[in-house]
């Protein structure tokens, strides 16, 4: 479950970072257009996360349950194993889909605040990039906590991935 959250949360954060940097290096666009494009991507990421996890987890759990039923020579549909095979894919799908969606919405928060007329210390697109980098760092810290390694080192590692992504975008799309 944690792995799904981190992997897909990372997907969401990097996608938003990529989109926002793309807008930054393009002809200036209206903030509402940027929000709509990013929201479209966020919702698509969420739906992709839900559906892909549900389909793959259901198949895996069904197969595992079938093997267990074969070994037990009995029907386990009404047992805790059968219930788990039905509910766990739903739960994983929910985590898998909500992680990129929630992280994307957090990254887009500065853009909404700006549209609502709330003054930000930095331009909204830069504020969104700062939020994205912060969330990517925190995902790394979370990974470090799971692995029991240095939190700072793990956070910096994921942050480096974001920096490399930004550099690649500037390199290939900045002209």
């Amino acid at each position: 479950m944690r792995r799904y959250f981190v992997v897909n949360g990372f997907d969401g954060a990097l996608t938003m970072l990529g989109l926002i940097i793309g807008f930054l290096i393009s002809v200036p666009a209206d903030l509402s257009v940027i929000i709509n494009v990013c929201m479209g991507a966020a919702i698509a990421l969420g739906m992709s996360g839900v559906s892909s996890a549900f389909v793959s987890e259901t198949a895996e759990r069904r197969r595992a349950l079938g093997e267990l039923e074969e070994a037990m020579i009995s029907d386990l549909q009404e047992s805790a194993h059968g219930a788990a095979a039905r509910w766990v894919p739903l739960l994983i799908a929910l985590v898998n889909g909500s992680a990129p969606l929630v992280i994307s919405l957090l990254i887009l928060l500065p853009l909404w605040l700006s549209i609502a007329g709330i003054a930000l210390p930095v331009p909204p697109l830069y504020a969104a990039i700062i939020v994205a980098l912060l969330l990517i760092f925190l995902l790394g810290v979370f990974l470090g906590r799971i692995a029991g390694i240095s939190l700072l080192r793990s956070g910096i590692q994921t942050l480096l991935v974001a920096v490399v992504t930004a550099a690649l975008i500037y390199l290939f799309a900045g002209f």
Partner: protein
Amino acid sequence: MVFVKGIVLDVLKPHQPNALEFSKAIAKVGVDYYVRLTVLEVDENTETLQIKIEGSAIDFEAVQSTISDLGGSLHSIDEVEVQSEVDVG
């Protein structure tokens, strides 16, 4: 009234839940159940158990239902202890 005081069951279960969780779940069926679980054989996906349950009035149907809920399969009832008691009141 006849009360079941003790039973020994032969049960096949998946590896999960483990023996401790399995026996605890059975013990929770009654208020004074004593459960002794012995793993007799371990296969790739299953374990064969001998479960001895003692109590003042064992509810066999509830025990059997708990075993099924946990994915276990009751193979046989190997020993039974019952006692008749006069209803008071």
